[in-house]
């Protein structure tokens, strides 16, 4: 069992999400940074679909009642296992009784500092519900009792593919994913494809969308990142929209003119114009971008999005091969 001594601001059980049920109004949810959860899972010998924890803004303390192996991805918030530092994308053996502590917000980086994903060998063994172990906070089901973790919660650990020898192996790490930003400032660049209603915005607003930096407001959550910047305006002749599908990464613009980038817990349909959609390969950056951090939207087409996705898959494949060479199972 893992005992939650301090949950921090928001910690939930998440896997890769609940798919195939959007037409029933059920959002995919899941880890907002699936790349991070995949990496953390691979580092502890799990399949990619094992459930882990998504921890928001650190401040979390977890006690492990039995030996296992853990990995953190995303921001580490100065994490320590009984006083020994654990860095992002490291794989660490844990002895029974040890405590993992994540500190407060990390002021050292302008690009991370919001969320961490923790994998434990064997995965968090909560019941599968509608094909996933993810917590749906809005609908109150899945994960651990359909809610955010509280002090005193006990989370069962599943069966690990690693034998005791490999589980106890000394710590090692891999290189975390590259931010390869092409901005000259501290902003995080997100590659965005124009959305279905892009042409309904004024020329000035379209230009501003690509040119101006956007700041993430503290009103952001797992449903969406709310941005502040120049007011984006639609052309006068634009008509009201009917309910239409929205997916994580969709940049929708409500009448306030201030965009919201939808995330995993957003509702499945929306009625606001979609000026753009963040490509899949860059959604992890948004999941890690700190509150009050800055974003830049970089216009790309389908071909570039495809290359970016392939590069990310290649990186994941290299990680899998490297771990396999070191005796770890290949991810399912």
């Amino acid at each position: 069992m893992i005992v939650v001594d301090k949950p921090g601001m928001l910690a939930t059980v998440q896997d890769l999400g609940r798919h195939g049920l959007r037409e029933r109004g059920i959002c995919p949810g899941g880890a907002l940074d699936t790349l991070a959860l995949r990496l953390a899972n691979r580092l502890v010998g799990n399949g990619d679909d094992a459930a882990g924890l998504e921890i928001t803004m650190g401040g979390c303390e977890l006690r492990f009642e039995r030996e296992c192996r853990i990995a953190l991805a995303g921001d580490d918030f100065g994490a320590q296992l009984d006083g020994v530092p654990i860095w992002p994308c490291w794989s660490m053996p844990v002895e029974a009784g040890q405590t993992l502590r994540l500190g407060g917000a990390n002021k050292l980086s302008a690009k991370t500092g919001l969320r961490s994903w923790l994998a434990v060998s064997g995965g968090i063994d909560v019941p599968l519900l509608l094909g996933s172990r993810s917590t749906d906070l809005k609908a109150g089901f899945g994960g651990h009792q359909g809610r955010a973790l509280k002090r005193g919660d006990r989370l069962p650990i599943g069966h690990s593919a690693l034998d005791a020898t490999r589980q106890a192996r000394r710590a090692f790490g891999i290189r975390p994913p590259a931010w390869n930003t092409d901005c000259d400032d501290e902003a995080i660049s997100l590659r965005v494809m124009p959305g279905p209603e892009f042409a309904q915005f004024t020329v000035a607003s379209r230009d501003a969308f690509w040119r101006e930096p956007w700041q993430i407001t503290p009103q952001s959550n797992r449903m969406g990142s709310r941005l502040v910047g120049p007011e984006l305006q639609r052309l006068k002749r634009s008509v009201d929209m009917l309910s239409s599908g929205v997916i994580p990464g969709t940049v929708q613009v409500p009448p306030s003119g201030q965009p919201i980038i939808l995330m995993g817990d957003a509702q499945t349909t929306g009625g606001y114009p979609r000026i753009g959609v963040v490509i899949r390969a860059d959604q992890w950056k948004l999941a890690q971008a700190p509150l009050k951090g800055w974003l830049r939207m970089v216009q790309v087409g389908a071909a570039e999005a495809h290359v970016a996705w392939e590069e990310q898959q290649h990186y994941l494949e290299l990680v899998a091969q490297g771990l396999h060479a070191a005796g770890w199972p290949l991810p399912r």
Partner: protein
Amino acid sequence: MTAALPRMHSLGDAALLCELPAPATLAAQQKIWALADQARQWPGVTEVLPGMNNLSLMYEPARVDGEELEARVAETWPRLAATEIAGRQIDIAVHYGGEGGPDLPDVARHTGLTPAEVVRRHSAGEYIVYLLGFLPGFAFLGGLAPALATPRRAEPRAAVPAGSVGIGGEQTGVYPLVSPGGWQLIGRTSVRLFDPQAAEPTLLRPGDRVRFVAETIEIVEIA
């Protein structure tokens, strides 16, 4: 009528939006459902999501590319019939007015009908589930009598109880879960619209026909 091809536009790098020109009609929506039924069988299509007068297709670009998918929609569309899908008839028992329907007097005032007449007309209607969205199991229903249309509340409620039956503009529907909401609440049902433990997690599916059956009516006469 709906012979014109839907407008197609990418929704990011792994989804395609197919959208019909206004107005939204039942016949157009029936073609949307027919396209959804075909598309969910296509290789590389992972999920279909009907909207109002539109359909989003999620796909795996490693298995099918976006242009290929557009071509497939364009080729399929003219051959689709606006068939009535095998929707089911679902009756939802409602306790109108009282604590569960605090806005019934406001709806009556706005529509110029008596509360009893609002209930009579609401429960006389036959509604069709156009799509599900907003919340798990929340159905966007077509078929509200135009005389019952009432604007949303100026101040949305922070927590609308599960099972609340409401009117929002020209739409009516039932809140499956406690949620913030701005619709005018006229009643409440004890029928469960969403159950994550069930094999069929939502009571309603697109294409279903819904009737509201007045179980009890609680009317406080207003001055």
